[in-house]
């Protein structure tokens, strides 16, 4: 029987604020199959990033269920979620979020080390070579350009071989040419590993490279269409 890899069932998210509770997500339901590439589009404040956080188990929904590979994330505690993410989920952030005190190699090795991989550094080195940074492995984040930092972040995200790769505005902090390079790399890595790619973006051109476009407005899914990716 066919079973989707990611399932979101009637997900609500309400956050407290000084002015009172704010509804961020209002009954979002979505299912994603293995190997799919999904672009999450919507204006600022539509709830794109919040949906990514909930789906990645970084934030617990106020109500509803989130399942990845059949496991209900909403029933897990924070540490159980952290352990779950180790092998299953990779995340790329808009602001890279590399650890400034670690070299590029060490940054990529972190998830592998947490996973207990004995060959963490060898694999990290291979991933860095794959993103074209073989010559930069001993550089610290502050010694790398923005594009290079995002490539390290990409290598770090895919290194443990996750089933889902979440990317939150991965090109948002980069100039056009560098952003395009990183986007190419992102889709190339997806093509190689066949993971689910869950991409949050506000760039239509980038979104069109995905096979499915989900549009969000005021915390609701307003459109969900399967398209032919533009290559």
């Amino acid at each position, binding site marked *: 029987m066919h079973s989707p890899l990611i399932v979101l069932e009637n997900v609500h998210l309400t*956050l*407290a604020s000084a002015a009172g509770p704010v509804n961020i997500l209002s009954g979002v339901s979505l299912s994603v199959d293995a190997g799919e590439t999904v672009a999450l589009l919507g204006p600022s404040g539509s709830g794109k*990033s*919040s949906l990514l*956080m909930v789906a*990645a188990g*970084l*934030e617990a929904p106020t109500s509803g269920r989130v399942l990845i590979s059949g496991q209900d994330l909403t029933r897990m505690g*924070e*540490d159980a979620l*952290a*352990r*779950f*993410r*180790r092998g299953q989920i990779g*995340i790329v*952030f808009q602001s890279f*979020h*590399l*650890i*400034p*005190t*670690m070299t590029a190699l*060490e940054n990529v090795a*972190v*998830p592998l*080390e*947490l*996973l*207990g991989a*004995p060959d963490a550094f060898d694999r990290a080195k291979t991933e860095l070579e794959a993103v074209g940074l073989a010559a930069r492995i001993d550089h610290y984040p502050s010694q790398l350009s923005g594009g290079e930092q995002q490539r390290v972040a990409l290598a*770090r995200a895919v290194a443990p071989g996750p089933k889902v790769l979440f990317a*939150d505005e991965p090109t948002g902090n980069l100039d056009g040419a560098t952003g395009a390079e990183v986007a190419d790399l992102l889709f190339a890595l997806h093509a190689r590993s066949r993971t689910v790619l869950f991409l949050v973006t506000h760039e239509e051109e980038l979104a069109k490279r995905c096979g499915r476009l989900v549009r969000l407005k005021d915390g609701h899914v307003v459109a969900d269409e399967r398209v032919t990716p533009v290559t």
Partner: protein
Amino acid sequence: MNAFVLALRFARRELRSGLSGFRIFFACLVLGVAAIAGVGSLSQAFLTGLSDQGRVILGGDISVGLVHREATAPELAFLKARGHVSEITSMRAMAYAIKNGVEAERQLIELKAVDSAYPLYGSVSIAPKQSLASALACASGTCGALVEQTLLYRLHAKAGGIIRIGTQNFRIAGVLTNEPDRLSGGFALGPHVMVSREGLSRTGLVTLGSLINYTYRVAMPASASIVKFRSDAVAQFPDAGWEINDRSKAAPGLSRFVDELTMFLTLVGLTALAVGGVGASQAVSAFLDRKRSEIATLKSLGATGGFIFLVFLLQVMIIAVAAVVVGLIVGAALPFAVAASYGNSIPIPARYTAYPDALILAALFGLLSAAAFAIPPLARAREIAPASIFRDIASPASARGRWPYLAISAFAALLVLALALVLSPSPVFAVEFLGSVAGGLIVLRLCAAGLRWTLRRLPRPHRPGLRLALANLTRPGAATTGVVVALGLGLTLLTAVTLIDGTISDQVQGDLPQTAPSFFFVDIQPNQTAAFDKIVSRARTATDYKRTPMIRGRITALNGVPSAKAKVASEAKWAISGDRGITYAAALPKGTDIVEGKWWPANYQGPTQISFDEDLAKPMGLKLGDSLTLNVLGREMTGKITSFRNVDFSNGQQNFILILSPGVIDKAPHSFLATVRVAPAEEEPLYRAVTDRFPNISTVRVKDVIGDVNNLIQQLGDGMRLASLITILAGLLVLAGAIAAGNRARLYDSTVLKVLGATRAQIVAIYAMEYGLIGALTGILALGAGTFAARIVAVRVLQVDFSFDWGTAFLTVVGGGAATLLFGLGGAWAALAAKPAQTLRNP
């Protein structure tokens, strides 16, 4: 891979960026550990020195002391059978300079007569150089005497001159430059003079009932057991009433003083650690706040909260270990620095070396304190949500952290407390001191919170500068709490120490001279009382004249239990550790305050009844009807306690803890003690009249003693104030840290103000108002807390009237304000100097 090893690897990577953010943490820990290690090492150096030199200081392996009487022939035989014996006789006496054949200047002296075996250990140094035997020899009616240089100054005499002691003339053969057993002699009321036993016997001062101490020092073979000596002495001469000391505790009073001073200074060191701990806690919080995004990233990559806690705990503890090592090096160097700087001028023997025990203790204190203060913020960091990587949701700083972590932190703090208590010679004082510090920290924190609350609710001033200064004190992340707590605690301690010191000084300089007599006359013989009374009565201004019989004796048993085995609290040990003055009285002496029981009936001659000091009753476990056994002149006598009196030692008058009913004690040979108060103009004539007529009576000028005691208090006060400065220094470090933490906000503020048209002078004025205000408010708080603590110590512990010193008050408030202002403006300097465009480009 083991989580611990992995966490260690991550911690090591983090530490590659250096001590950034941990400088204050590091400095506070170095300071606290160095203080405790230094004090401990120096104390050990002195205690080891005293122990090493034990037999030299004591003058033998064993010292047997008797008061009023010499050892009997069997007792002497017992001593001689156990080693080489040296006999010393010591007493207080008057020395007269003989000039042109008549008595000129005179001075109370500590007279010591030695035999040919003296000294058994160590050596006497004399200037000019000569042998002891030849210096003290008697020939053609004159004997030799060695004197301290002070006596020559006071008598305006020179070596070769003549002094008279009692009825005997002595030629000053030279100056005593080193007396090996001096430290075991106790508090001296006058310069030391050494003569031969033959010389002493010629003075006519040795009479039955005179206050004379006979000491027998025994040099025993190396194989002889001190324990066996003691048990044999007690078994064979149970009623001897002698005080036996051995080389392991040659100067018990001095060792106790070193112990107690060490305790006080260690507690001050712990206070510095506590103050530093507040800074450490702030530093760790600020550090983790900067690492928030990194922690969230690690969590999003699969790191658990426990793992995050371990990574950062390891980092903090690695830095703590480094700081402890530096602190230990500084502390261990202190004895060597003292040796190099003061060496020979310190009168206590010391062995200057490294003392591992003291260093291990300081390291434990340092690491436990670091853990106690660092764990709570680390526990909060453990709770940082991974979603905070995207947006600033619930502030982690407001979360408390899980209870097991807080329990570990509390356990580390309790271990520090327990360690301090176990090692303290006076656990009650240690509990009170540390309790006050903990209470002070809590109160100051509450005050800081109250201050912020109040400032927030004050109406906004119209002057924009003052409005901004007030707003700066209450905004989130303001240094207010840090400054109030850290600087406040140090200033509180300094205020308390200074006010207590001032109160004692006032007591000694101001109150005591109002109530104390002008003279103490000791050793008035029964056949001299009538003539003595007559001389005193001639003084027109003489008041409060009091002449009391006095005999020295030891309390040897409490309710039949030997004193050595009786349960006596440490604060009352002094009462049973040596001989005490005992008096007797038929009628209730004037001014006596009986607080419990009844005075004996008039003309009572029955079994001995005792009126005892009520302050000693509780620590000695005594109540009405209990018995005390006293040894007087080698004879045991037991009496029943029938009343307790309030004995006030602070008035400087005659005070006896033991007053006995007549019937038995009055039959023993004894002398009289007299006190009198005369107008200053009549002091010298009365002094002359008594000393001219009675060369055997020792005359103590209270004015001189008060001067000596005052000097001692001054020196101790200076030392304690210096020690308190360590906590102030820790407070200033924390202050610097708290101000540095706000520098980013300062930079932004000053940039915006400049953009809006504020000049640098205007911005400085705003900061000056802000820091001056918080500093002065902290000073006022510290003044209140310090005064409260000093008042409790004065009234409850010292039982004296508390005196408030406005100078201290002023200095505390102004000092607090000035220090904060200085550090604050220093910290804000970079913000003032920054170019606005630069900050606006890189916010």
